[in-house]
């Protein structure tokens, strides 16, 4: 059996399709027969019913015309022309109704001859007979009514009244005839409905039988296809189940050239590829497991470092807070220093005035000392004059000394006579010596005085120098104090700048605090993200281990 599965299935499909198409065509034929029958019945019934309606209407109109003519004749004030017109109309309608009766009879007879069902033919025959009877009654009514119209034309009231009753009776007889004709038509319609029901039942049964035959045929074809297709497929499915269970070692026997054999070869290739894939997968899963473990370790490290970062940010925030406090203290201290420096500047201005006074006093002292020095110099000159006088006195005493000695010598030369003179000479010498000694003492004292004067001069000069030095130092001090004042004022400005800078620094530090807050939030978010990464890596590790277990399932 070398027909391929595709061809087998195609064969079965074609057979079933042919059966279904034949069934459909038969059903359509039956439906068309039913529809033709129904059309015929309905068209005929409706034609006769419309003719009967016209007939009834004309009968009633003729009655109404007659009554109008009677009333017009009785009222006597109507013109003659109108009366004549009504009569004319009545007569024309009477002719039309007569023709209509004839047509109904002809039509019913024709339908009776062509009806396929005998029940319908009998119904039409009865209708024709009834219509024939109604036509006879109508002719009698016309004949009875004609004398009344003659009386109407003559305006004979009594004659008109006399004819009314038989005419009315005849009218009712006519209406009853028409009603009977309708009933005959209804019987025909009922016969038509019964005929249609018969045709429907016949078609139904034939269609059901054909359907059952096609179902049987389909079951047969399906069983055939199943035996040729599903059996080899079950072998393949068992092999696929073994492969699904993880056994990649077996192969499928392939013989022939149909689709199953090709499927088996394809499955063998697929299993070989799967075994290769499983080996690769196992190795890759091991790598994945290791990588997931590394990711988890690094995520934990990152979490730790994020914690450290968070702690560092906290410390930084604390430090910045301390900086803020210390900056505030700097500002406060700088304010105090400014106050102190301002009081220092006032003090140094007072010191400046005091130093200026001191310089003036020093200048006065120097002038006084110079005056003293001048006086002392004059005194020194006076002592010089005294020294000259003393020199003179000393010279005189020296000469007196020599004179006394010469006198003593002369007295000794004079012998005894000069003895008393020798005494005088001795006394003279004594006086001269005493004068000389006194002069020496005066000279000594004068030397001491001159040394004192010199010392005084030197001291005075020293005092003048010192006064000048004091003046210079006072000037230096003044300049120094001025510099100090300037520096202090500069310091005040500097400290005011420091205060301003510190305020700006405070603002900057507040911004830094805000930034640190952002950093802290960011690091918290980072910590949360890191925890998520850690959890994800843990999941990844579990997944990798599950994958390892899965990969272990495949034997090859």
């Amino acid at each position: 059996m070398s027909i391929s599965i595709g061809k087998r299935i195609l064969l079965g499909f074609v057979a079933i399709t042919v059966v279904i198409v034949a069934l459909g065509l038969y059903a359509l034929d039956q439906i068309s027969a039913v529809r033709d029958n129904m059309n015929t019945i309905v068209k005929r019934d409706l034609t006769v019913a419309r003719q009967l309606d016209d007939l009834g209407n004309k009968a009633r109109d003729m009655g109404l015309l007659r009554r109008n003519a009677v009333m017009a004749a009785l009222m006597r004030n109507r013109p003659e022309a109108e009366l004549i017109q009504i009569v004319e109309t009545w007569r024309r309608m009477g002719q039309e109704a007569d023709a209509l009766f004839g047509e109904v009879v002809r039509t019913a007879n024709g339908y009776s001859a062509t009806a396929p069902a005998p029940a319908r033919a009998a119904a039409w025959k009865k209708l024709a007979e009834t219509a024939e009877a109604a036509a006879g009654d109508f002719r009698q009514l016309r004949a009875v009514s004609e004398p009344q119209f003659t009386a109407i034309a003559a305006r004979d009231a009594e004659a008109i009244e006399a004819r009314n009753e038989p005419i009315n009776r005849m009218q009712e007889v006519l209406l009853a005839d028409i009603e009977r004709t309708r009933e005959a038509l209804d019987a025909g319609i009922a016969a038509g409905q019964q005929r249609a029901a018969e045709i429907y039942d016949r078609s139904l049964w034939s269609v059901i039988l054909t359907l059952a035959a096609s179902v049987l045929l389909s079951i047969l074809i399906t069983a055939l296809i199943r035996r040729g297709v599903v059996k080899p497929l079950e072998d393949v499915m068992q092999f696929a189940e073994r492969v699904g269970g993880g056994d990649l070692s077996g192969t499928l026997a392939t013989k022939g050239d149909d689709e199953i054999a090709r499927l088996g070869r394809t499955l063998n290739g697929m299993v070989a590829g799967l075994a290769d894939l499983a080996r690769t997968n196992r190795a890759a899963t091991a790598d994945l497991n290791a990588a997931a473990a590394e990711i988890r370790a690094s995520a934990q490290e990152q979490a730790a470092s994020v914690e450290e970062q968070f702690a560092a940010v906290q410390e930084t925030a604390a430090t910045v807070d301390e900086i803020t406090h210390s900056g505030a203290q700097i500002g406060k201290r700088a304010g105090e220093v400014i106050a102190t420096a301002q009081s220092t500047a006032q003090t140094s201005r007072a010191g400046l005035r005091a130093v200026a006074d001191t310089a003036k006093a020093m200048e006065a002292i120097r002038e006084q000392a110079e005056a003293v020095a001048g006086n002392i110099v004059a005194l020194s000159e006076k002592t010089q004059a005294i020294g000259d006088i003393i020199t003179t006195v000393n010279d005189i005493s020296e000469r007196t000394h020599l004179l006394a000695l010469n006198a003593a010598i002369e007295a000794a030369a004079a012998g005894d006579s000069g003895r008393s003179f020798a005494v005088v000479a001795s006394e003279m010498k004594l006086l001269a010596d005493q004068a000389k000694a006194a002069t020496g003492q005066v000279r000594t004292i004068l030397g001491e005085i001159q040394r004192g004067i010199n010392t005084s001069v030197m001291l005075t000069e020293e005092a003048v120098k010192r006064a000048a030095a004091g003046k210079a130092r006072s000037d230096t001090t003044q300049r120094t104090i001025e510099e100090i004042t300037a520096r202090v004022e500069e310091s005040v400005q500097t400290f005011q700048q420091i205060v301003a800078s510190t305020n700006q620094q405070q603002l900057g530090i507040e911004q830094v605090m805000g930034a640190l807050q952002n950093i802290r939030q960011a690091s918290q978010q980072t910590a949360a993200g890191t925890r998520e990464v850690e959890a994800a890596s843990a999941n990844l590790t579990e997944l990798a281990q599950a994958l390892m277990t899965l990969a272990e399932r495949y034997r090859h």
Partner: protein
Amino acid sequence: MNGAAEAARRRALREARTRALAGRDRTARQRVTLRSFLVCACGEDRYGLPLAQVAQVLPARPVTAVPDAPDALLGVVALSGRVVSLLGLARALGRPGAAEPGAGHIVVLRGGAAAVALAVDRVEGVVAIAASDPDLPNATESLLDPAVAGLGPGAVSGYAPAGTHAGDGFVAVDLPRLLRRYLS
């Protein structure tokens, strides 16, 4: 100079004067033979020249040097129209020379063959002292013999010990013996 020292000095001056005036009568009444000496100072030494041989005392004056003269001969000076040889006393006695020439005093000697003057630093005064008594060789108030005083022979004729006169003791110079060396 305080007042106390001034008062002490004046008192000492008055006492010396009083003692001198009191000794005036005693000297006049003395019967012992007295020899007067002119006491001169040369450097640290004091020499007594016999007053009888002294003619005049003069202040120093310019000296004209003499060529090829002995060491002690300072030169010649003009005195009252005479040319007088000027000897340095200390040099003549072999003592260190006096201070600069032109200062000090000149003692003009009397008599002798030639006119001689002695240059001394200063003529201090006239002292009268008793001649040496053989009976009282160790009397403190008289001129001592050179042998007794322990001095060597030479131009020294005696030694006046200190303490007896105003001032220190002095060496009495034998002028003829001294000048003999330069006048022979």
